[in-house]
Each structure stands twice: as structure tokens, then as C-alpha cells.
């Protein structure tokens, strides 16, 4: 079994990096940090559902850049600078002053938009990295005991979501086999009804199972294998705090988890 860092460590680390790149506000700086973070994610990759969230955040980040660029080019307040090309101008009514659609596109406009977009995308990616590195279940187990019971319920609810997705998929496929049309409102109704019925039945089953296993019966709840905070966690956390001193320390902070690797535990 591999010794994993404390889940909170990852969140402290990524929060520090995200704040860091926002403060540094530098294009190349944030690109470099994101590169290093991707390295860390790649190195600690697990085959778990939440590991995909980095990939998802990469897609979101890309979309953010695209949208920001599109808006930057098409809609904008005229600023002086080097003119690249001119888009056809869309006349707007007089009660919308200061907004302009189309018109000349400036180089400065594009670079500043790109700059903002990259920093925003960087923050999204870094937070995505943290969520792909920590199991939500492990994170939950670090919660204080008095909100733990509620947390357990929340996590169980989240495990139902993938089941819901798979039953939608399964039922859609079955309907396809019946030769039904796959689009339109009626098609969705045909899928939604069995899915809802199934999830209701499943929820009742689950409630019965939890009930008969003593969930919520005892006022206190003990913990199997509590997650402990170790020296390596302190090192990462300290490095994260130190990174606030200078943007250059941020690089050090970003790579520090790379050194934490491969601590295999022989006996627990």
C-alpha cells in the first residue's frame, strides 16, 4: 500500500498555487506553474473516477480561453494600438452606449485578453488538479466527527450519481433495441420514467440496507483507520505558505510533491 499525502495537503498546496498565480499575474509564470502541476498530477495518477477531473478541468479551461478570446475580439471598447484587421461593425441602438460589436481589432486587445484568460484557466486547472488528486471519500473522512454523519449521507448520495448515469445509458440502449427513435421529448420521457422508478426502488433498498446495518443508531461513530497528518504534509503546507513571500518560491512549491513520491509502506 502506498502512503498517500493527507487530502487536505493537496488542497492547501493547490490553493497556494492558485492564489500565487493570481497575485503574480504573469502569463509565462502561470503557464510554467500549470506545466509543473500537470507533471505532479501525471505522477500521482490513480485509476479512480475522480482522477478524470483534471482532464475535465482542462476542457473547461480551454473553453474559458476560447470564450474569453471570442468576446475580446468581437465585443469591446475601442483602445488605441496596433490595428490587426477590421470586423464588420454591428450598429447598436443609442441606449447602449460604450458597447461595440465588431469593428477594428487591436493586437493589444488580443494579448491582454489572452493574458487574463490564461491566468483564469490556470486557476481552474490547479483546482482541478487538487480534486483529481484527492479521493472525496478520504477527504470526507477528515471531517470533524459531528458533521461526519451528515457527510456520510452526502457521499452515499454522490455514489448514486454514477449509478444513475449508467442506468440512463442502459435503458436508452434497451429502448434503442426496441427500435424507438432516440431524439425528442417523447424519447426522453420513455427513458426518464424507468430511470426514476429504478432509482426510487434503489433508494429504498439502500435505506433498508443502511438501517439494518445500524446507521445512525448509535449516537457516536468510531473511525476505522483515521487519516493522520505526517511530516511530509507539514513540509508541503509550509512550502505553500512560504510561496506567498515571492513568486519565485512558487515554482519550488509546485514541484515539492514530486519529491514525496514512492514511499511504499511495508508494514502498516
Amino acid at each position: 500500500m502506498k502512503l498517500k499525502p493527507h487530502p487536505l495537503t493537496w488542497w492547501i498546496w493547490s490553493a497556494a498555487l492558485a492564489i500565487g498565480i493570481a497575485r503574480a499575474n504573469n502569463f509565462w509564470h502561470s503557464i510554467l506553474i500549470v506545466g509543473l502541476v500537470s507533471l505532479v498530477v501525471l505522477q500521482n495518477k490513480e485509476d479512480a473516477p475522480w482522477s478524470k477531473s483534471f482532464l475535465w478541468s482542462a476542457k473547461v479551461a480551454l473553453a474559458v480561453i476560447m470564450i474569453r478570446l471570442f468576446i475580446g475580439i468581437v465585443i469591446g471598447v475601442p483602445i488605441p494600438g496596433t490595428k490587426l484587421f477590421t470586423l464588420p461593425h454591428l450598429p447598436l441602438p443609442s441606449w447602449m452606449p460604450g458597447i461595440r460589436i465588431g469593428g477594428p481589432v487591436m493586437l493589444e486587445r488580443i494579448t491582454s485578453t489572452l493574458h487574463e484568460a490564461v491566468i483564469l484557466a490556470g486557476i481552474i486547472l490547479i483546482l482541478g488538479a487538487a480534486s483529481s488528486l484527492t479521493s472525496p471519500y478520504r477527504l470526507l473522512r477528515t471531517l470533524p466527527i459531528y458533521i461526519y454523519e451528515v457527510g456520510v449521507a452526502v457521499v452515499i448520495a454522490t455514489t448514486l450519481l454514477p449509478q444513475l448515469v449508467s442506468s440512463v445509458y442502459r435503458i436508452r440502449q434497451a429502448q434503442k433495441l426496441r427500435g424507438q427513435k432516440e431524439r425528442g421529448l417523447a424519447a426522453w420521457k420513455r427513458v426518464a420514467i424507468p430511470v426514476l422508478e429504478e432509482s426510487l426502488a434503489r433508494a429504498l433498498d439502500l435505506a433498508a440496507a443502511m438501517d439494518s446495518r445500524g446507521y445512525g443508531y448509535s449516537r457516536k461513530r468510531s473511525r476505522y483507520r483515521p487519516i493522520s497528518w505526517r511530516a511530509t504534509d507539514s513540509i508541503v503546507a509550509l512550502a505553500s505558505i512560504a510561496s506567498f513571500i515571492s513568486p519565485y518560491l512558487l515554482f519550488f512549491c509546485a514541484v515539492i510533491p514530486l519529491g514525496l513520491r514512492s514511499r511504499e509502506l511495508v508494514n502498516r
Partner: protein
Amino acid sequence: MIVFSNVSLIYPNSTRTVIEDLSMSIAEGEFVLVIGPTGSGKSSLLRLINGLVPHHTGGILAGDISVNGISTQSVKPGGLAHLIGIVGQNPLNGFVADTVEEELVFGMEALNLPAETMRKRVEEILDLLSLAPLRNRSIATLSGGEQQRVAIGSALVMHPKVLVLDEPTSALDPIAAEEVLSILHRLVHDLSLTVVIAEHKLERVIQFADRIIRINDLGASEIGKPEEIMKTSDIAPPIVHLARALGLNEVGLTVREVRRMSEDFRNQQFEIQAPVEVIPGREIIRISKLEVSYAKQLVLIANEISMNEGEIIAIMGRNGAGKSSLLRAIAGINSHAKGSITIAGMETAQLKGSLRRSHIAFVPQEPSDLLYAQSVKIECSQADKDNGVESGVTYALLNELTPNISTHVHPRDLSEGQRLALALSVVLSAKPLVLILDEPTRGLDYQAKKSLTKVLINYAKVLKQTIILATHDVELVAELATRVIFIADGEIVADGPTIEVLLSSPAFAPQVAKVMSPARWLTVADVIKAIPK
């Protein structure tokens, strides 16, 4: 250990008594089997033991149930969690955690046991159920048998005195079922655990039972030794039917017993029957160079299979061997499949709409996936419209399958067998060339299985259609199939007439064949046919 005194149960909004005036007591270390037709209240009886009924479901309970001296009326099910472990019909629905280890400790955490105790018990259970290699695995990735073992493990880890199981082997292949049941058998003998189990496939469990509780549709019940109950019960494994057919004085419950009893019979000389000459029909399905892979892993490979008109083909193999992958590939809905599969010359993946309906019918593991209407009547008329047949055809077909279904009932409220019949008639009214069924007998009792078998054989013989089914049910295959394709680890290891394939593997041989070996008979009907008049 468990005492029922004058227990009667009625659910609200229902006039039928589920259980009527049941008094019995189950001693410590007993293995008790509950039998009865589907919908007869077996599950209710099991859930009465830890108070899920009526605390969780509602209903009017008369009389009293006590377990280890605690009345279920005075405590909630949670209060009995340390005493009773309960494993539901579908273990996946009851899982709460993501990994095996977490799942095992869930109940103990809830009961606030100290961490050291939990550590010890988890290791103990992992060893006892051979789950140790799976401890960090995600539960969703486990096979059916493994999931069932985890479910049993998470009940046993609480050190209960009673273990209640609702159809624990219905989703398992014969070998995995054997594994689970022998673990239970060992626990009963080693730890004096009390086990109450409901099961349809009696041939799997009856040999382990100390006593049987039989419930009928009207809520009446009787309890007795397996030999006594089996003398009169119409719900009985093939081995009991065999003993009756041979006119033996007693019924035997294991292959060994019946072999001993039928020695005289087996020593007689029988005319060797010439194998029935099967004239193969026209080729209807052709599969060539099929490969299915998930996440770059090859899960199924089949070079050349051809299936003919009028054949009933059973696809067998262990859980996760690739049966469903093959079925879905044949149906043309397996997006991971490469290669060519044609039905009557048409690529199945390209079939759409009414052309699809008239070529392939597919009934998935959950027949209700196909159903979406609010009542049987609407469902049938929708099918009539879709399939372009006269109105009433689907309902007539349904009536043939299971007579007297009320048209106003919601499909969810039908019994398993009736729901399967409804799904079947919906797809069959289009008169498809090929019918594909995935695990059709899950949760069906003997009666429902018998009528299904009759309908399917009739369908294949009269209409010359092809039927393909994946199943774990050896006895069903013996009764129904003309040909068996056996898959192991993604490869086809045997393909031939049912009798050849079933008799070549002891784990997949039906009971009658085991008793009558070396004579080559698969079913009770085969034996009766051979008896000289």
C-alpha cells in the same frame, strides 16, 4: 434463536394476507430454507426477522417475533444490527462505500466499535471469505460472485448470530454459487451461525438445509424437514421430480442419495436411443472475426460462428466471461465490437427502427428497461402501433404467455415472471427473426420457468425462429436449448449440441445427468421417455 409466535402480516392497501398465523422457532446453528412461488412473501418473511417489515415498509403485523430474546416490535432494525446480518437480493443496491475495506467497516463504525477491534475483524473476514486480494478494489469493478462475498462479509463482520439471505445465488454462475453456499455451510458448522435463506434454484441449496419453510400464495405456511416437505411440494428440484418419476419410496436430496436409491433402475438395460437427427435450418446469423475490447483489453474474440433458423442456443460461462458482450454484439449495440455480424445478410449494427424490430428482439437482464408506459394496456397498444400490427395482437400474445393479467396494472407491480412475459410479448409481436434473452430466469420460480420454456420451444419450432439466450441456469439449458456455446475468459471453448457440451463438464451438468451417468439423459422427461412401457 428466532421465535415467531402467531405472526400474521398484511400490507396496507392490500386485501391479501402475506403471512397467516405462522408459529415456529429456529434454533441456533440451523440452516433454514424458505421456499414459495414468486410474490408469495418470502422476502417479507426474511425482513420480518430484523424488523425491516413493518418498521421500514409499513403493514399490519399481528403476533410477535423475537430474536435472541429481543422482540422486533420494541427496537428498530438498527438496534438488531449486531445480532442479525441481512444480505439483500441485489447486493449492489445495498453498498454504501467505494472500496471493499470501507464497505466492510461501515456497520462497525456505525456501532461505534473501537478501531483495534475493527482492524482485527476486517482481517479475519478478509481471510475467511478469501477477499484479501480485493481489499482496496473499487466495489463497482468486482464480479457478481465477489460482490456477493463482500455483501456477506460486511454482514458477518458484525459477528451476528443470525444471517439472513434473500436469493444470494440468483445472479451467480454454478461455480460461484457453490462457493458462496459452501462458505455458509462452513459458518453454520464452525460458528453455529443461524442461517435463513430464500432461494428459487433449489437444486443449489437444498442439500445444505436442515429445515424448510414453505409458503404458498395465500400466506399459509408449513415448516419441516426437507425430506418431508419435498414429498408433497410442487416446488422441487429436478432430482426430486426424478425420484417421483422413478417411483422411489423416498426422495433424495443429493446426487449421492438418489444414485444409491436408483441403483436397480440404472442397472437395467435400455435401448440406446438414436440421437434425434436435427436438420439444420437456413443460416440466419453469421459472425465473423468478432473482437470486443474495453479500455484496450480484449474481452471477447470469436472467429466464425453461424447460427441457423429454429435453433435455441444457450450461451454459458462464468460471471464476466463475455456472455453479455457477445449478446450485445449480436444485437448490434456493442460499440466496442469490431468485425462483422449479419442477420439475414444485414449488418446488425446498422439496423434501425421498424427494420430492427422485425429482425432482432432483445430482452435485457432487467426486462422493465423496455417498458415505460403507465399500464399494461397502454404498453400493449403502444407496441401494436410501433410494430404495425392490428390492435390487440400484443395483448393476445401476453395472454398466451401468462393468462389473466389485469390490463390496468402498472408494469412495476407485476411479478418478475409477468414482467418478463410483458416485455417478451412487446418485442415478439413484431415477429422478429431472432430473439435474444439475457439471463431470462433471474428471480423466476419453477412454474414461471416452465411456462417460459414451453413458449420459447414452441416459438422456435413453429415459427422457425432463432433464440439465443445467456444464462447460468443449467437446468433451464437442459430443458430448452438445442445447442450450447460455452465461453471462458472471452474465448469460445465449446460449441455443440446441448447434450455433448453439458455432459462434458461436471460443474455445468444438470442433476439428472449426474444421477444417471453414464446414461446420457439430461432431464426427467428424457428418463421417462426411456422407461419401457
